[in-house]
């Protein structure tokens, strides 16, 4: 099963390496990892996507929590949350095919960033599924390069007074049993 963790970490050198090393060293499956500073320049937010059975995922959370540079881990999997990925895709597109590619791009709300003599660069944002689909649809045109950002995620805001916080409380209690993996 795929899990998404959103983490606040100290903006120290080597933090990404500690996390990546933990995954490779212990044989965990790391799908994607993205990092960027927050409004506090001392703190970086890392969004991490990993795959594993529930018992393995428990270990992953506990092991990450042991890293001293990690301040807080939020498991977004059980929470209503938003997930986005950005991709740049360069497709082969001779002038006679440009129109078709434009149409496909339009369907996926992709933007054309660049047009070359025999290629185009498209930018698309969305869920990972949407990007997978977009790439699949573009396959017949021969894709030359793909660059994907990896997932960034955020929990949704409250929709009604209290309900959201109840939901969060439920999730947080469940996780507290798993020893202090804190929820925002």
């Amino acid at each position: 099963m795929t899990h998404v963790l959103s983490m606040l970490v100290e903006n120290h050198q080597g933090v990404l390496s500690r996390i990546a090393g933990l995954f490779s060293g212990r044989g965990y499956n790391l799908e994607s990892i993205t990092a960027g500073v927050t409004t506090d320049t001392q703190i970086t937010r890392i969004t991490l996507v990993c795959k594993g059975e529930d018992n393995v995922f428990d270990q992953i959370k506990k092991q990450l929590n042991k890293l001293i540079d990690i301040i807080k881990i939020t498991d977004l999997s059980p929470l209503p949350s938003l997930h986005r990925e950005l991709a740049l895709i360069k497709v082969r597109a001779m002038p006679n095919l440009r129109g078709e590619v434009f149409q496909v791009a339009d369907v996926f709300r992709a933007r054309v960033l660049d047009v070359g003599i025999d290629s185009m660069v498209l930018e698309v944002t969305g869920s990972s599924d949407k990007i997978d689909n977009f790439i699949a649809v573009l396959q017949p045109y021969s894709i030359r390069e793909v660059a994907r950002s990896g997932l960034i995620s955020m929990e949704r805001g409250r929709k009604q007074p209290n309900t959201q916080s109840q939901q969060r409380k439920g999730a947080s209690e469940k996780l507290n049993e798993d020893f202090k993996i804190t929820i925002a």
Partner: protein
Amino acid sequence: MKISGAELFVKALKAEGVKHLFGFPGGVVIPVFDTLYSEPEINVILTRHEQGAVHAADGYARSTGKTGVCLVTSGPGATNTVTGIATANFDSVPIVCFTGQVSRSMIGNDAFQEADIVGITRPITKHNYLVLDRKDLGRILKEAFTIANSGRPGPVLVDLPKDVILEKGDDEYPAKVTIRGYNPVLKGHPNQIKRAAVALKKAKRPLFYVGGGIHIAGAADIFRKAVKKTGVPVVHSLMGIGAFPGDDPLSLGMLGMHGTYVANMAVSHSDLLFGIGNRFDDRATGNLSKFAPEATIVHIDQDPVSISRNVPVEVPIVGDARLVLEQLMPLLEAPKTDQWLKQIAAWRKEHPLEVKVGQAEGTGHLRPDDVIQTICQTFPDAIIATEVGQNQMWVSQFFTFRHPRSLLTSGGLGTMGYGFPAAIGAQFANPDKRVIDIAGDGSIQMNIQELATAVQNRLPVIVAILNNGYLGMVRQWQELFFDRRYSSTCLRTGAECPPECKGPGDHCPAYHPDFVKLAEAYGAVGLRVMKHKDIEPALKEAGKIKDRPIFIDFIVEREFNVFPMVAPGAGIAEMMFSEGGQS
């Protein structure tokens, strides 16, 4: 006042109460050693290899609970610490290891004696630091000491670039630091503790299973009280040796691959296994699908990672073993265990661990069990260090430990060459105690250079070498599982040997080195014992010596095996008692 990084470093050591520092100098750390040179409060101990320095700091820490400290140079000095750090990390030993680094402007340029030691040790330290700014030095030093010896302890490495060492800056060493990503849970969850007490009271076949966490938390006393209050029998892991007195009627001994029959049978039939400060390691559990199949499992541990990793746990309690036991004590009630204790007594009778006294049959060599039992009788309260292999397992079987922190052994990593330098460190920390390294002839050679350290410092460490001329544990596996093909395990193999040996005998080449002459060459005392009647006199003679290390070369039976044994992959109830035998 502005002081250099080196001066702040020494100030920090003094503030932390560091009395002994194990180290080896080199180019970039000369200024630190220079500052230490005129510092009467800190005894700098020059080992002969950086690995020896880390193991010595480890032995110092394990035997006392205080943080062990070492200081080495950059590059090879730093990389030589890796095995020692990994050893300490596996067994949760508080160490702060300082390494020199090339100047900041040189980092990344493949400068002379440069190594990315922070990158190298990331997976084998609790945490590590490269100090890139002189103004962070005080805080980092304090964080290093704080992290190393709190929560689940472990080694912390601090890499000090040469120019940071030299740079003048703030002289402040903070009394306290808060680290926002580090908050070990110390007290147990009250509801879970209630559940644990109820489970124990209701159990018909309860069993405590204790590990090294008891030593770390200083929980031996309160645990003893808990056992007294409940009458529940105790098994221990290798790291748990000494957590409960080995001569207590409720002690069943060690479980696992070379555990006792009664311990393994008790675990396999218990209906409540109450783990404290242990981690259900594979050498203890054997085949997991056959481990404690009837038991509800309660597990108290400082590290959430250890809980429900190998074995699913019904009642998990994260916390410090001593604090949790203090919470638990008032709730404990004695379960009815008469039947269970009767059954246990029967198992104990069925296959006791027996020591045979005298010479081995056939060859007339010494029996290692006899040697270890005699050491135990001669020095019952000694601190014992071991190397790794047969010597280690025989110690766990035949030496009766009665005190916490009295066994120093590399349990998790299984580091040959650990015991001797660890014994040296322990002797510094415990000048009034006997410290004995029980070694094999293979493993003692892995850090034998530290003999010079022991001689120079007049440490009366006794090294009892069980000399069988083999890397005995691997040889035992070759005998049992590889058709007795002793590939690369015979330490007497010479040019005249045939490509495939038919077994040891009088035709074997002479053994090298001669440990007696070697000890003498270093200025230590060397003794050799070949007959049973000489074991005790030799130990007594060694016991009289107070100013030099003593090597005793015990010539033991070459193909003596460690039994009982659980074959790799088998359940712990499936024990072998001899070369061919299954339970």
